[in-house]
């Protein structure tokens, strides 16, 4: 089981320490930080998630701005620790209604954080991790709550558990009331792919998730059907989803938690058409190189706008200076890393975005064999590359809930070889 947890800043300062099985000296963090620096120095890489020290095992996860470092002494499945650290992180995000935790948020809410850590684990093993429980026992902060506490002197800790949650449906309490009953679904699909220099697909898969925000009264039992459920053969569910129903009928039957939650994750293989094409031509010759990158939209029905297109071209380290031009958007080059970032924005209908020009190589350096792969980012709203869509949503309650479905396709690790 987990002995201790440390939360560190990007610069290695300790923000939070929590010990579940006796005190462990903070100096263990110095050891960890040496490792972080060592791997950074050696090859600019990140520190491995599991580090073995003479006395302890350190398991860390790195998230924007912070490290969560778990210290253990005994055998524990490492994924359990990683998942728990991740759950702690997600709980913070939800509690402090933010998309990224930083040092200031932690400092502002340190009492809350200690209270949460105290509830979330006992003896170093996850104890109460269900958000529904935590929110009932420890009220999330917020200006209004803080003022109320200040005025009335009441505390943010209660001695209550959510109604009717000690049974099987731990994710929802009874007696929830909303004036207007609404539920929203966000289908997001990320394309992870590698495309070779001829435009052929080396590997490709789509990772999708459906996030939901439920504001429904009572104990709604929902049934969600998809237009093409057979497509989803590799899925993972929130615990609320009834597995057998899915197995037998390919419908999602569930009683949703209140508020935000991730309904399911899925993975789809065999996609071989993309709405976007990227044609890079980078060749090196006498002391320099010729660069030509074209981005364009393939015909698509119905036609959708491809937005937020950013093309990242990492030039070889031997590139000295560049002379580039773009006809759409703007570009910038990081002189230290030689990474060119071309912010295309929306792909216009009337012309094809192009980046072209020359790069000069540092004299005396050997000629690069080829340019490193180009990566792309983009998003298309109200579009799923897999074609997945929600067909219907049935609810057993007396009211008719308002339903909203949004969908989006994004580039995940979208990589084009040169």
């Amino acid at each position, binding site marked *: 089981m987990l002995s201790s947890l440390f939360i560190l800043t990007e610069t290695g300062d300790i923000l939070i320490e929590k010990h579940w099985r006796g005190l462990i000296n903070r100096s263990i963090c110095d050891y960890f930080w040496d490792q972080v620096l060592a791997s950074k120095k050696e090859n600019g890489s990140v520190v491995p998630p599991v580090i073995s020290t003479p006395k302890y095992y350190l398991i860390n996860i790195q998230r924007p701005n912070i490290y969560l470092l778990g210290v253990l002494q*005994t055998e524990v499945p490492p*994924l359990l620790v990683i998942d728990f650290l991740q759950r702690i992180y997600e709980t913070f995000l939800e509690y402090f209604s933010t998309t990224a935790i930083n040092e200031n948020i932690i400092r502002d809410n340190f009492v809350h954080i200690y209270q949460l850590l105290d509830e979330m684990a006992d003896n170093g093993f996850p*104890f109460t991790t269900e958000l529904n429980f935590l929110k009932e026992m420890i009220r999330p902060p917020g200006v209004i709550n803080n003022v109320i506490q200040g005025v009335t002197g009441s505390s943010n800790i209660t001695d209550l558990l959510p109604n009717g949650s000690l049974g099987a449906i*731990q994710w929802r309490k009874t007696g929830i009331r909303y004036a207007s009953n609404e539920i929203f679904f966000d289908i997001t699909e990320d394309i992870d792919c590698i495309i070779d220099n001829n435009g052929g697909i080396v590997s490709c898969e789509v990772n999708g998730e459906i996030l939901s925000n439920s504001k429904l009264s009572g*104990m709604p*039992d929902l049934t969600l059907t998809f237009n093409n459920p057979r497509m989803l053969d590799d899925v993972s569910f929130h615990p609320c989803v009834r*597995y*057998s129903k899915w197995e037998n009928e390919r419908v999602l039957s569930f009683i949703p938690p209140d508020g935000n939650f991730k309904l399911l994750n899925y993975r789809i293989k065999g996609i071989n058409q993309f709405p976007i094409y990227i044609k890079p031509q980078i060749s090196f010759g006498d002391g320099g190189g010729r660069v030509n990158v074209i981005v364009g939209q393939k015909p698509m029905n119905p036609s959708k706008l491809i937005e937020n297109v950013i093309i990242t071209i990492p030039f070889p380290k031997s590139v000295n200076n560049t002379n580039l031009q773009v006809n759409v958007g703007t570009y910038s080059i990081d002189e230290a890393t030689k990474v060119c970032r071309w912010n295309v924005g929306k792909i216009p209908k009337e012309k094809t975005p192009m980046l072209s020009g020359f790069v000069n190589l540092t004299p005396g350096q050997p000629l690069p064999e080829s340019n490193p792969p180009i990566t792309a980012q983009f998003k298309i709203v109200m579009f799923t590359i897999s074609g997945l869509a929600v067909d219907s949503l049935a609810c057993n309650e007396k009211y008719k809930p308002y339903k909203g479905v949004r969908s989006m396709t994004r580039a995940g690790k979208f990589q084009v070889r040169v």
Partner: protein
Amino acid sequence: MNSVLNNINKRRYFSDQTANTKIDELKKQLDSDSDQDKLDSMKKLIAMLSKGRDVSEAFPSVVKNVIAKNLELKKLVYMYLVHYAEIEHDSALLAINTIQKSLTDQSQVIRASALRVISSIRVLDIIQVIILAIEKSIKDSSPFVRKAAAFAIAKVHKLDQSEDKTEELIDLIQILLNDNSTMVLGATIVTFNEVCPDRFDLLHQHYRKICQLLADFDEWSQVITINLLSRYARTQFKCPDIHIFDNNKSAPQQQNTVTPHKQYKKKSSSFYSDDEDDNNSKHSESFDSEEIDQDHRLLLKSSIPLLQSRNNAVVMAVSSLYFNCAPVIEAQKVGKSLVRLLHTNQEVQYIILTNISTMVTMRPNMFEPYLSEFFINSQDPEYCIKLKLEILTRLATPVNISRILKEFKEYIKNEDKKFVAATIQAIGSCASTIPDVTESCIFGLMSLLTNTSSIVVAESVIVLKRLLQLNLDMKKDDNNNNNNNNNDDNNNNNSNIKYDNIIIHLARLLDTLQVPSARASIIWVIGEYSHKIPMVAPDILRKLAKSFSDEHESVKQQILNLAAKLHFASENNVKVQEKTTLIFQYLLNQAKFDLNYDIRDSSRIMRYLLVNTDNTPLLSQNAKALFVNQKPVPTETSVSEDRQRFTLGSLSHIVNHSAMGYQTLPDFPAEASDPSLRQPKQKWVPDVQTQKLSFKNEFESSFYSDDDEDEDEDEEYSGEDEEEEEEEEEEEEDELEAFFNSDEESGKKKKDKKSKKKSKKHHKKNEDEENENMDEDEMDELFGVSDHNLVVEMKKLTLNEDYQTTSQSVKKILLKSTVGNGLSIEYCFVRGAPQPLLPQQQQQQTTKTVKKVLEGEDDEEDNEEHVEEQQEEIQETQEEAKGYNTIRLFIKNTLSDGNISSIHIGKKTLIEGSKLLEFEEIEQLSPGQLVEKEIHLLFNSASQPAKFEIQSDKGISNVSLTPIIGELIVPLEFEDVSQWEETYTQLQTTTAEEENLEFGDTLKQNPNALLSLILESINLQPIAKSQSDNNSYNNYRYTLSGTTLLKHLPILVNIQLNTVTHSAHVQCRSGDCLTAMLLLKKLGDIIQK
């Protein structure tokens, strides 16, 4: 106002100013009267603690506040207390008393947190106090507290690991293992795993329960439980792939082992198979998975849905379970889920890749379909790249190798030269495992020798060297020994490769290649295989001798070695030897004055060994053995292979050494343990909470779930259930009466008998009936099961046992006389009654029934009419009147004196869609008089009670009628069994609820009573009883059918019994899933009673 601002800006606790606050000040603040001040100073203390300052000084002042009423303050004090208790343990003891008091607090949260704190104080002196607290808490009514108690046991164990204490704790764990709350059970298993991970003897009788509830555990304890059960399976069950191992055994032994397996197979097929069992022949086909012990199968079956868990650790645990405990064929399916996890985040990716890399060393075909998932993305961190390369290498087969090599070619262009070097090594291993591509790999690698990066060149040469060594040595063996017993047949295909050309090509590189390590490697190759190029080698030596003084030390060393080897190689050719000896001597002279002492030393040794041999005859005789000998091919050692010794998914596996507390996964035993060990000693009856159920897991135990209800209603519902059971016992006699067989011949007698009994029980009943002009016989015909029905039944049921249908359910109390001011009402559901007539239809009917209209029975119909209607299809009865239950009320005046008058139904509180047809007002009831009335009720819900008022001149009483699942069904007939089977198969696609059950005591004594028991409380139509297995008299199959009242959909039930193992497999299929679930639960209750 100040405090408001304080709350808004908490960061000030972290400001330097506060950090410098004197602890003395804080102590003073802690002693103040204001909770707000105390809270403020506690927050400051925690902030200081968080900054790494030692604030233990304030301990005594803090401890005083443990008594605080303010919860937030209390929690902060607890937090501080636990942090410093070890250091300040004398002062900590002061707090114990107060905390103990909190253990009896009203709030379960406070009780739980007090227990958690007291058990977290790591002071040995109070261990007995903690144990006392745990003993008390494991009996707490709240599962939340019991869960905390389970965790506390592990804490005590960590504090004192002595044997007798452990025994004491194990006793506590045993008590908790009997708990049926999944919350508690999960926590108990986590504790079990920490305190006594090897005591499988304690698990036996809980094994089945744990498997069945597994899906309802919280995700964290699922991980631990699955790992524990993996070890359990590996100690208690036989290897599932036994037939593989049997191959090695002699034939007679094999027969012996197969026979018992076949028995198992039969059992398991009747228990678990989803398919129809009429085609039993299908099951007799030998399929290895069926030879698994049914308990083993149960574990596999209940864990497989968890592959869909959102928790990565759970998926990993299930994968490990399948990899280690399932038949190899079944284990294949976990591959897909593991690959999915690769895309969560890079930390998870690392762990999964490490595990996959070990799995592919054992079963590469598991991941072959997912080859492209392991292609490297430029954003992958370094630690993942290495693992992916290794996995790709392991997955290489002659079929996919070209794809892999194409991919590798891309990697070689990478700027990160370490990555390129790793790729080259990977190419080398592919080349050595797949002979088809060895040649192309070698040429590919040779083209890399011109690379600008020294790392790349060196790595290529090293890999080439290894490949040459591997292939040439094998070839040599082949040629010399003509022996095909080599470990590989690779070399047969390789004979067409011209190694001499490769070596010459390498030699040419010496002119241009500058990297010392690569040069040294090439020279080594030339020396080692000089016999391949006998004419070229001396010339190379000559050229090298010219540049000797400018070479790098390692190259110099190899040049000397080359010279020495050539010295021997040219032994037979005097002319060549002369020349080489001269060059050799020249080299030795050069080396003699080298700056490097290693070179000087080795030149000196060589001189005395090979040239000036006068003083060292013995050494020089054996010199050849020193220089020219068979060098072992460097073997590739992989960490992943080494990791095989650790269980997948464990920490030890990742760090590749045994971590403290690591439990090895034993090998399957030769003999499985006795399955009867796992027979639960204590009957496991799901309590109210488990009934509330598992949603994700309709798989095993889903039938308990009452989706639509919230808790209150649920409790009410189960409360009714209990009540019903009680009454069932009490009113056994009533049941006998109620039992009604309308077989025409015996009908008369029975009716007489029945009326006698009835009259005994309900005094003056006959009088009442007379009053109402109600003939007993007519009553029976009116409400009884129609004759037609039964005739058909008797034909179809080839039953050689008694079975009974009932015309009405057990009587229950609707209104107690004490509550109803002297008016008591009992009620029962009447079965087979016609659907009531709605008012407008009634009018049409009145003409027919006018003669027979009896007092108070306004919806009574002509008897003939009744039979006619029954014969018609249900659908053809009045559309609007579907789904009604007929409920007979027995209204009695229990007053000793005084009439009750104008009894009627008052205000009705019904849920939407529910309808109630009232009885006509009873004008007067004299003392002791009993009147039977009927109402027709459309519940339109499986759980929501119909509430209404009974009004009389004595007042208004509120009553409620709760639907009983057994009565929400009406029998549905089928012409014959085959028709039933057809429908049953059709329904497979809809909801199929199923469950395996152990017999209760009643059934154990008399298994034949099952049908009567079922029909007693559930209004189903029995279709057939058959032996489900021709070879055995112990297996029976019952088929029943009905139509649900709520949705008017057919519901079919299939029950398979084994009277030897006392177990039953029940399946309910219907488009109305709610009813099916409830019905299955009810059937479960009956069987387990």
